[in-house]
């Protein structure tokens, strides 16, 4: 039983990263119905930005604000940087294509993803970069035989804070209502006086910003980053969003955590090699029996 608990924590840690990236993903996806393949690479760009900040800027920042401050500063700056990158990507690659529908936008997103991936390789070099070791002290706790590190706890807490914050903005504020309205139908929302451009601006800033923060967190937790990691995480985020139900932002959170746990179950109790096969099989079964994801709303087909 003890092992199961520890594996559960491992699963949750993996899941919290998926949830965080899926959140940023479903912000864009929920409202614009755009499968933003570039989101994974914006996430990777975030981790590289965090890397540069921590390596070059860290001496200056940590001396003034201490270690925790350095970490927070890196995340904030990365979030702002990637938020701006998200807006630029939307402006150049997506805005001119909205009238042509969704399929060309997917090709454009793929183009941006390939471009960003290689831009990172050209800028930072093809080598694997490593986050500095002393960023977070590796303190290990042992509660009833279960090993959990300080960083694991910080990451879990931070993810849940961000998720709660986003949930509050989306579900409880009027601006959140505007976002949800434009998610359902952009044209009608515009008719109701919602300024769609600000909504799009906010989404393409906040979504990638969340992705950038997650990038820094992954960099700090695993300490190793590569220019190709964006692609895998992007695919996992898309899977989590669908699992949770399209357009349902809390759903993305649940979907991400569940995805982490499914991976853990597959890897621990079946075989690590067949892990992803197991995860995709579950996803397909979920969609066959609940063709709109776990929390997605039933949309009756009006005839």
């Amino acid at each position: 039983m003890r092992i199961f608990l520890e594996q559960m924590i491992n699963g949750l840690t993996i899941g919290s990263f998926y949830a965080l990236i899926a959140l940023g993903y479903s912000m864009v996806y929920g409202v614009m119905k755009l499968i933003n393949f570039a989101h994974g690479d914006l996430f990777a760009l975030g981790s590289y930005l965090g890397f540069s900040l921590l390596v070059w800027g860290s001496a200056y920042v940590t001396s003034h604000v201490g270690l925790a401050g350095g970490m927070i500063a890196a995340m904030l700056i990365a979030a702002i940087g990637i938020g701006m990158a998200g807006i630029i990507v939307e402006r150049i690659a997506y805005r001119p294509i909205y009238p042509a529908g969704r399929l060309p936008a997917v090709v454009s997103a793929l183009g941006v993803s390939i471009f960003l991936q290689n831009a990172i390789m050209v800028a930072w070099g093809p080598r694997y970069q490593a986050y500095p070791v002393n960023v977070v002290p590796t303190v290990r706790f042992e509660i009833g035989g279960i090993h959990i590190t300080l960083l694991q706890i910080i990451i879990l807490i931070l993810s849940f804070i961000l998720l709660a914050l986003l949930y509050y903005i989306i579900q409880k504020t009027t601006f959140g209502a505007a976002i949800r309205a434009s998610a359902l139908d952009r044209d009608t929302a515009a008719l109701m006086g919602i300024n769609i451009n600000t909504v799009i601006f906010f989404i393409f800033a906040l979504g990638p910003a969340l992705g950038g923060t997650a990038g820094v967190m992954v960099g700090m937790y695993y300490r190793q980053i590569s220019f190709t990691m964006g692609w895998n995480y992007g695919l996992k985020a898309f899977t989590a969003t669908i699992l949770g139900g399209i357009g349902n932002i809390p759903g993305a959170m649940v979907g991400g955590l569940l995805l982490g746990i499914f991976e853990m179950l597959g890897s621990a109790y079946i075989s690590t090699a067949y892990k992803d096969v197991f995860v995709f099989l579950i996803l397909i079964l979920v969609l066959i029996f609940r063709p709109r994801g776990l929390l997605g709303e039933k949309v009756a087909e009006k005839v």
Partner: protein
Amino acid sequence: MKSIKYLLVISLLVLALGISSLGVMAADKPPVVIGLQGPITGAWAYEGEMAKQSCEIAAQLINEKGGILGGRMIEIRIADDACEPKAGALAAMKLISQKDVVASVSTYGSSVCEPASNLYEKFKKVNIAYGATAVRLTERGLKYFFRTCGIDSAQGIFFADYVPRVFGAKRIAIMHDNTTFALGVAEETKKALQPKIDAGEVEIVYYDAITPGEKDFSVPLTKLRETNPDVFYFTGYYPEAALIVSQARDIGIECPFVGGNAAINDEFVKIAGIEKAKGCFMTQEPMPAELPYPESKTFLDAYKAKYGEIPSSPWPVYAADALNIIAYAIDKTGSTDSDVLAEYLRNEVNAVPGVTGSIGFTEKGDREGVPYLMYVVSEEGTFDIYNK
């Protein structure tokens, strides 16, 4: 509007044909051109980059000594295969169809080397692999295929003999990442351990694969910890190896960690951090830094002078040796004909001093006498031969 579209299509067709004729008229230039096929782009771009740099240094050293065949300089022609089978076949054909390319150093990945070597064989071009260690590549009786790197079975045999004897390990955990190379080493090690398993001296308590490119291995490692192994052998590549070691130490796996010859290098130490990397072992052919031979010293000094640091994995240095041995064979036989070269390389070449030690080829084209050593990562992160 319509006419622009048709013009576009016609220009596309003409462009394609124009470029293709370019390939036909490459004139024959005095220098001896040797091809280098490697993953210049893609996930293994870093390995490709180091291989390119190593070959350039090797060529530079030969040219400084007056070149070969009475003053003809060595020139390298690169073909990128992005470590992908289809691109591998295309890159090989690109080098083959350029008549001035005499032979080629080809390539890093085993499953890319397979289609490429088939093409080199059909068009009678000597090709020497520097990173493809899959045993089967030399089982196919190819006449023009050689390799300067070792093969998986040699490493497996070394592990199976050394670890139970020296470490006294009874319970062995083996983890690979389902790539051609890592699975090859893991399978060969299991085969080599079989007699000891049958005799009951040794037991494989864990044998599974992780997915390359992932970051979080806490789940399989927790499973592995429960089998409390005496030794943990990871046969994959250094990016995953570094993550595995640090996560293993985090969740309390204290047994000695042994990496395959692609698992541990400077990158591994940088990513895992020194206090987790020190004390890790590695079944490894002689590392570039440790090569005691005079040729390796001059090569590494020249490399460091030009690029600021020595290559962080053994494969690029094998690429340099592949180029050296081709140049050596051309110089000694005085001809660039593939059959003459293949004949010479297979029979006459033995114990030729090279950057990675003495070079010689077995009947099947494998590298002769590649000594495997057990290295250990020291306190300062250097690699010392473990001679207990």
